[in-house]
């Protein structure tokens, strides 16, 4: 299209469509950019290619049946979403879960965070043309996946948390497996840093690219690692501690510039902190119950159901009618791998959720994409996108 620029000069712009079928847009973002040469003058982006009706689907089932759907919000760290949802509902019940469940949730949370960050960094490298770090990042990831398989039975979408406890206790040798995974995570981190820190091509393509100021990032509602990359030390684990996060010794990683490189570096540094938390949590993992004892909330186990009348009724009721969450409305946010995952829950006191609205971090991050790419070249825009870590399931829900 031919346009007059603000100075009155004639420009011949090209409208170029990128995505959703593009390796870097991951089939979930479409960008229509007006290009002057190779510079993006303005851009419009569109999402919704993966809108699969999370909010409509959960209204149709019981509260427990909403859990598998939360898994598939951010499928790279499925269990964190479970835990975020379950935590919100537990707060509505005003219940406190047993100590062992808390510690177990912390371990699972942090291992999921490691998984998620590895995928993000790996995909960012892959999109910029680096295949080696992709392979490095996936090795420890596979090791953690093996732990998930033993622990929950599934590789990716685990549904491990339950309202009022966990699905089941750990297996024999869980601690050793996690420790071994931690060691290999640290080794992979070393390898990744060797690939990343002094890689001329990588640095040229990411340093100073896609900068955003603190104020703008906050206005866009950015949370999590991408906000911390701009220099805001905001972490719900420290600000509004849950599951005794305040007693663990870890740092909030903060970036300096808020560019594409910082967003990846913050993630790598966070993996280190997560390993620290996992090691501390493993020491606290004392034997004990993992479920609360309340047949109205947590389904009684088989043993109780077969031997005890109360247990049988509790099991029957909670499976067929669903647990009854107290009537009311509530918003609660949890620090997930990508940022604050919040659930606005409206309960009418029945066994089915009346309305669950997921506040996904990716949605806020990607909304700034068109502003970030303005004035940059086409190739830069593809270096920015993976650092925002848009996960389609969470972005469009």
């Amino acid at each position, binding site marked *: 299209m031919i346009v007059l620029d603000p100075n009155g000069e004639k420009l011949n712009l090209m409208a170029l469509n990128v995505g959703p079928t593009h390796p870097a847009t991951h089939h979930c973002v479409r960008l229509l950019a007006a290009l002057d040469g190779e510079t993006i003058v303005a851009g419009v982006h569109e999402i919704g290619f993966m*809108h*699969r009706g999370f909010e409509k*689907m959960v209204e149709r089932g019981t509260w427990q049946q909403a859990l598998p759907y939360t898994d598939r919000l951010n499928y790279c760290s499925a269990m964190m979403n479970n835990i975020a949802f379950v935590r919100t509902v537990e707060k509505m019940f005003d219940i406190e879960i047993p100590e062992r469940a808390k510690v177990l949730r912390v371990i699972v949370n942090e291992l999921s965070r490691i998984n998620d960050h590895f*995928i993000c960094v790996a995909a960012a490298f892959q999109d910029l043309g680096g295949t080696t770090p992709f392979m490095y990042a996936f090795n420890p990831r*596979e090791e953690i996946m093996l732990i998930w398989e033993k622990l929950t039975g599934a590789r*990716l*979408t685990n549904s491990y948390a339950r309202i009022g406890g966990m699905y089941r206790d750990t297996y024999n040798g869980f601690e050793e497996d996690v420790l071994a995974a931690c060691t290999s995570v640290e080794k992979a981190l070393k390898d990744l840093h060797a690939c990343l820190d002094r890689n001329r091509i990588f640095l040229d393509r990411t340093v100073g690219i896609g900068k955003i100021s603190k104020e703008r990032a906050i206005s866009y509602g950015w949370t999590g690692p991408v906000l911390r990359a701009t220099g805001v030390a905001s972490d719900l684990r420290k600000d509004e501690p849950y599951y005794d996060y305040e007693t663990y010794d870890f740092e909030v990683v903060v970036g300096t510039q808020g560019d594409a490189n910082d967003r990846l570096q913050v993630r790598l540094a966070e993996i280190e902190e997560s390993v620290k938390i996992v090691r501390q949590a493993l020491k606290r993992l004392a034997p004990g119950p993992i479920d609360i004892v309340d047949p109205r909330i947590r389904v009684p186990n088989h043993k109780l159901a077969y031997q005890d009348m109360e247990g049988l009724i509790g099991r029957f009721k909670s499976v067929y009618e669903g647990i009854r969450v107290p009537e009311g409305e509530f918003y609660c946010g949890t620090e997930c791998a990508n940022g604050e995952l919040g659930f606005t829950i409206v309960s009418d006191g029945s066994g089915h959720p009346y309305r669950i609205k997921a506040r996904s971090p990716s949605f806020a991050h990607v909304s700034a994409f068109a502003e970030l790419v303005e004035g940059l070249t086409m190739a830069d825009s593809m270096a920015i996108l993976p650092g925002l870590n848009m996960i389609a399931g969470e972005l469009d829900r």
Partner: protein
Amino acid sequence: MKNEAEKPNFITSSLDFIVNWGRTNSLWPFPYGTACCAIEFMSTEVGRYDLSRIGSEYVRFTPRQSDVLLVSGTITYKQAPILQRMYEQMAEPKWVIAMGACASSGGFYDCYCTVPGIDHIIPVDVYIGGCPSRPEAFFDAMFDLQKKIKDESYMKMRTQRVKEQWELIKAKTAEAKAAAKEAAQSKITEVKDFVVEKEQKLIKTAQFWKD
């Protein structure tokens, strides 16, 4: 020796064998990964599972250079026209794998926005179950696809295609002929009319001079 060479089947089956052998062992996938299954596909590609063992390590993100369209993840109505376009852009021969419950049947997203299985929009060769499917299941599907390709006959497909094209050409030529005939017919009638008119004019002038 001469008789052996004259048998037509000998060469056909050999060519099939060679072509299919080449095709089965270098299936280049086009990962149309939208959701969770794409992450599992990434796991399949690297390290522990290593997709390159069956010659499929070359992941192409363009439909023009790939053989297998690997739909991994939910396809929504917003995505459906794009997926169909991608399938149309792929060069023959092409195969489609529907990876995971969502691509095969819509999975547990039975909702206003999800396509209940990609076979509503494009043909599918192999379905994989699971939500998401495990890498082992994916390998199984690839082996199934390889078996399927081995059963295909290059020559048969080619003759089929030539036949179809021939039919098409015949139909088209018949159509063109009919059109030409019609045009000619109308021209003849036009000429006839013209001649008749002229004759009448001549008669009229003759009459005039007679008078």
